[in-house]
């Protein structure tokens, strides 16, 4: 059992100028499931490989527990990379398939058997231990492969997009299995994915990276409720948050005809490089559909309705008539917003609906720096 610490850890690939990972500071608690998430190329795999010892650390340090492992060889770090790539040995029993690495390491037979039995218990494989892999289902084979990593009792599990190879259905299933398995084992785990839904559903905490720089780390709830900047706000949540930048006039953010009042302490924080603008974010689920005559209501022309049974989403356009339509973007594109609507009352394509942002569910950011206000 161990904590993991990235202390200003930096990786600059030879022949490049910008660090792939730039002074990463991250402390992972003992037993925690931490997910590194961000768009492709943001430095997730590089961070994980630095922890694994596969990538040189150009500046800063990496610690496992209190031990500085920055210059320690991968095999001496007491970590296990959990492979998606497993091949089971056909002539060995399931027990031997799980325990052979311990045998190589010279672990006494009785201890191997004990650790294998414990792992099998957790993995629900106890009754198969003396069979050959041929007799197992696909899912059970995958669990045997997990068992190989578990019996080694490493300090940390590392997983890099382990589900990317699976089809959508199996991915959702395996996701829950891995998460619950990790909770039962209590082994510190660092998990890399580009998929924010995977991150939200699996992680105790999530660390969002962009361009090699850590944007925010927190619980799924933190990330969803109080994104630290515009990037995190737009990245976390599905469908994505609607985000727009608007001028501030007379204490209001002017969203075309609609006006959203700004609190005085918000106005006080505006900085010169905000140029008297503010970035406003609101999630599709933070909008109420209201009468056309409601003050501050925003008209939305319905382009598509996505019905998901328990939910329905309108993908709509803002009208230029009300100014600044281009200022808004969302998961649906520029000048588009997404609205969650009552699935039993979906509007038709081409209709106009009016929506209002629910009080207290507005996210405000500096137009200049993109940092959260308040």
């Amino acid at each position, binding site marked *: 059992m161990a904590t993991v610490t990235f202390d200003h850890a930096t990786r600059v690939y030879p022949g490049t100028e910008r660090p792939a990972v730039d002074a990463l500071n991250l402390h992972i608690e003992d037993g925690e499931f931490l997910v590194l998430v961000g768009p492709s190329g943001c430095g997730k795999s590089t961070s994980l490989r630095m922890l694994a010892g*596969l*990538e040189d650390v150009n500046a800063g340090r990496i610690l496992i527990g209190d031990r500085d492992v920055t210059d320690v*060889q991968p095999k001496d770090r007491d970590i296990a990379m959990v492979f998606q*790539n497993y*091949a089971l040995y056909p*002539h*060995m029993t399931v027990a031997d398939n799980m325990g052979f*690495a311990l045998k190589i390491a010279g672990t006494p037979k009785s201890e191997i058997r004990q650790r294998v039995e414990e792992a099998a218990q957790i993995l629900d494989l106890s009754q198969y231990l003396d069979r050959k892999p*041929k007799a197992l289902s696909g899912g059970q084979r995958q669990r045997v492969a997990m068992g190989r990593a578990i019996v080694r009792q490493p300090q940390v599990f590392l997983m890099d997009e382990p589900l990317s*190879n699976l089809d959508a259905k199996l991915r959702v299933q395996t996701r829950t299995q891995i998460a619950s398995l990790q909770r039962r084992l209590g082994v510190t785990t660092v998990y890399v994915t580009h998929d924010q839904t995977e991150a939200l559903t699996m992680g105790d905490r999530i660390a969002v990276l962009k361009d090699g720089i850590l944007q925010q780390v927190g619980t799924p709830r933190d990330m969803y409720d109080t994104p630290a900047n515009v990037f995190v706000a737009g990245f976390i949540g599905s469908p994505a948050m609607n985000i727009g930048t608007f001028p501030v006039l007379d204490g209001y953010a002017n969203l075309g005809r609609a006006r959203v009042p700004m609190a005085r302490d918000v106005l006080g924080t505006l900085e010169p490089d905000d140029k008297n603008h503010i970035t406003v974010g609101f999630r599709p689920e933070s909008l109420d559909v209201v009468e056309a005559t409601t003050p501050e209501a925003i008209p939305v022309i319905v382009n598509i309705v996505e019905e998901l049974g328990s939910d329905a989403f309108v993908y709509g356009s803002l009208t230029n008539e009300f100014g600044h339509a281009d200022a808004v973007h969302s998961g649906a594109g520029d000048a588009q917003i997404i609205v969650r609507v009552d699935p039993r009352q979906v509007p038709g394509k081409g209709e106009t609906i009016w929506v209002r942002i629910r009080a207290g569910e507005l996210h405000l950011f500096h137009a200049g720096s993109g940092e959260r206000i308040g």
Partner: protein
Amino acid sequence: MSPARQQLQITAASPDPALLDLPWHIPLEHWPAEMLAALPRGISRHIVRFARLSGRVIAIKEIGETVAYREYELLRQLRRLDVPSVEPVGVITGRRSPEGEPLEAVLITQHLQFSLPYRSLFSQSLRPDTATRLIDALAVLLVRLHLVGFYWGDVSLSNTLFRRDAETFAAYLVDAETGDLHERLSVGQRGYDLEVARVNIIGELMDLQAGQFLEEDVDAVAIGDALAERYADLWRALTEVESFGFGDRWRVKARIDRLNDLGFDVGELDITSDLDGTSVRIQPKVVESGHHSRRLMRLTGLDVEENQARRLLNDLDEYRAATDRQAEDESFVAHDWLTEVFEPAVRRVPRELRGKLEPAQIFHELLDHRWFMSEQQNRDVPMKEAAKSYVKHILPNRPDEEAILGLQPGDLRDTVPIPRITDEIASPDES
């Protein structure tokens, strides 16, 4: 519904239209046996099958679409970098069953002719040095991969194919799925590859022992450990900095000779002397394997493995000495050797026996055979006579290695008996 409803997308550098005739609407597992070539395979996670296509054999692997494209691209890059690896043919996506069910993408590679999966080479009667020679070959492959910046991620015997190379083996990479090309590898990446290799090799050997294909008393752990040692020796020889006094400059030439001996050419050698000029440091910067095979290729156009080339070049040298033509241009002599010695010898092999071994390997064995005969009969046995005896007594008893057959068609599960290739050096039975 007809299978034509699939919207196949074929990505290939030079697509063979015959590819379209294969039953892509059927999961690979259920392909009719008559389409398949029943060749042995290593242990794998994906479904892999061999199929006949336009007179050759291809290997088909069902694998996720993104990974398929990635592996295809990596294999192409490895070929460009001249590292021994299987040749990618293409990727096919958009497969559907007649019921409209989407099927997995496939990566297609050229079946590597005369390649021997390790499971065919190990047998109850394992000669102790077969294991050593396989490990040596894998160590050379790994060093070559690491020199070009390839991190393998899953080094194993299953992911390697072996071809005979005179008395040794040459190793080829077959599975690039977990690999990555880098500008240069870190010490950690190289170390991790070695550790993975060690554990995988030991596991694979233990598996053979569990299946009673390999004797219990073979020390699997020692064989696995040997890889790391061989690798370290070779890596050091190829990359180490060497310092010596200014007077010992012969050591530059000696280093180059040593590398040539190991089968490598030196493309670039760093030489620095310290300020007061009393000592010199040298370090090879660019080394390229294939020293002998390139030389033979230049002289004769023959494209063979490194140690086969070494053997053939030796014979060429003997020919030159025997015909007293040392003063002549080497390429003229080489041409005559090719037409007067090599080709006639290889042509003596009847067509039906040509699938047994590659021509260069046959020539190598012929040289061995002639040596045995000469020893036994205490005279210089002419090549013609040796070839006649070899074709009559030795070659017919060898298995077909161009494409080892031995499994029943249709029975391709990983646990079927593995055809065994014993590794006895052919010895003449006539006296």
